[in-house]
């Protein structure tokens, strides 16, 4: 039992950490909020008059904004589908006992250790280049013909690159979930007459539900803010085809030198992230209850 005294002592002891954390979060957020109400352009930083919500109305009425939101959501959804689907398949594969499984597991995890900029450069120049990229060569070889990924299917190309980077993460989490499935449950299902597909559908998949939820939640947080891969490969183009919200904010701030507009965009991005998180938790959060 905590007494009054230990409670107030605990409060006192925790205070520095709580205050530091608050400052850590509150200061940047309020500065962004503050900047978003100024007409603050880097060409004229001496004059930053207060203009209320004008930055917001400009940002929200910009046609680029809706394109960016659509691209952001497409990117998140595309990568999630590939990483969760592929992660389940890979996890099932790596859960088998075959010769050299440890080395294969290590290789499967490797992409996660490659920095996003490096990964994007490698994909751009060595894999997806239509002339000397591996994929182009292969497609030529089988007679389909090379694709110029970054001009013809730029968002798909980005989705592939990002999915490649995140596949190991989902594979790893789903593999640990798979390994915690009791052998007896599978055997019981087998005796009950379930075939391999039924066992997967009725036993394995529900068992992995919680891990899948975790993968989706964590990845969504990171995927909403994908930037390096776009910057290195397409710079948001061609046109606005690969501009997502973070890239739009960046373009506003450092290509148009509009700090006020970028801040407004940043706040909008925060709100969007919260809306997405809210719906995600509503939809799949029940899997997290014990």
């Amino acid at each position: 039992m905590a007494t009054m005294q230990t409670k107030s002592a605990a409060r006192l002891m925790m205070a520095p950490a709580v205050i530091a954390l608050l400052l850590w979060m509150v200061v940047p957020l309020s500065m962004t909020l503050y900047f978003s109400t100024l007409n603050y352009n880097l060409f004229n930083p001496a004059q930053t008059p207060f203009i209320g919500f004008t930055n917001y109305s400009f940002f929200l009425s910009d046609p680029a904004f809706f394109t960016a939101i659509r691209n952001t959501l497409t990117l998140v959804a595309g990568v999630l589908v590939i990483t969760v689907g592929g992660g389940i398949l890979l996890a099932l594969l790596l859960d088998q006992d075959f010769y050299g499984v440890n080395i294969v597991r290590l290789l499967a995890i490797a992409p996660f250790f490659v920095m996003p900029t490096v990964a994007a450069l490698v994909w751009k120049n060595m894999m997806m280049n239509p002339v000397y990229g591996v994929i182009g060569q292969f497609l030529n070889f089988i007679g389909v013909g090379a694709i110029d990924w970054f001009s013809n299917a730029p968002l798909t190309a980005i989705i592939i690159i990002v999915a490649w980077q995140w596949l190991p993460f989902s594979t790893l989490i789903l593999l640990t979930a798979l390994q915690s499935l009791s052998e007896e449950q599978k055997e019981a299902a087998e005796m009950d007459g379930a075939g391999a597909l039924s066992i997967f559908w009725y036993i394995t998949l529900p068992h992995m539900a919680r891990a899948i939820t975790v993968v989706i939640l964590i990845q969504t947080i990171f995927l909403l803010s994908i930037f390096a891969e776009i910057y290195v490969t397409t710079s948001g183009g061609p046109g606005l085809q690969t501009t997502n919200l973070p890239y739009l904010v960046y373009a506003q701030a450092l290509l148009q030198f509009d700090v006020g507009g970028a801040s407004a965009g940043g706040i909008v991005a925060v709100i969007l992230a919260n809306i997405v998180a809210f719906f995600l938790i509503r939809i799949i959060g029940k899997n997290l209850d014990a």
Partner: protein
Amino acid sequence: MGNIKLREVSKSFGSTKVIPSIDLDIEDGEFVVFVGPSGCGKSTLLRLIAGLEDVTGGQILIDGKDATGLAPAKRGLSMVFQSYALYPHMSVRGNIAFPLKMAGEDKATIDRKVGEAARVLNLTDYLDRKPRQLSGGQRQRVAIGRAIVREPEAFLFDEPLSNLDAALRVNMRLEISELHQQLKTTMIYVTHDQVEAMTMADKIVVLQAGNIEQVGSPLELYKAPRNRFVAGFIGSPKMNFVEGAEAQKHGAQTIGIRPEHIAISKGEGTWQGTVGVSEHLGSDTFLHVNVDGLGTITARADGEMDVRHGDRVSLTPDSSKIHKFDQNGLAIR
């Protein structure tokens, strides 16, 4: 119909031979218990019958048909696992219905059979709960429910009661025996607990290191154990073994005498000794007596017997109940 025959069945894991070679006949409707110490291969044998492991050699016949290569689901057997192996995300109803659903039964049939099984097992009020919301005994019953709805040729139980507390264990023991009386289906039941074996079985199969030591009814094993291992394993408390000069008097390497076949008195007797620990169970008292020249002998006295630690007593074994064993441990008849 549910008779099961094992013909020279053997099993190795890699280079370790777990079951050298077993021949066994299990008749339709019999309650057979595999009993033996931990690690003797009981579960392995059961899993071979279930089809969850492949035999290394030999044949398994179910209803006279060769089932050696058949998939588990095709053998018409149901298994109750030690850990119950319930499906945690399904309700009790879902668990019991699962085998029927897999068999492609229609909804009405499933509902009827699940309801029936739930009634037999007193689970009707719990059908919509998840396994984690049930007590150990209820989970056990759900596992049994899942096994009976398929109306199998035979039930396989692998130490189903070992996760329950002592009182519940006695209850479930009765319930399973009761179920067997009702269904009259063949049951194969694995346990390391000889009390379970003695109380439930029509036929006990005593296993040691993958070999069958003896097959027989509980009383046969109790009265005429074939060797020293069975004699020591069946019966509680354990049979006393005496070697040396005392055994030679009976023309044996070893003699065995059960605690309940020794008379205790304060007067004259065959053996003299000092009382060590005495265990009072109320109905009986088990005395651990330090017999001069023989070592510790356990003897049963009735509950009222008034002896203390350090008292001198004399023990007289009932000579008609003495078991004699030769140097290979085999019983001399």
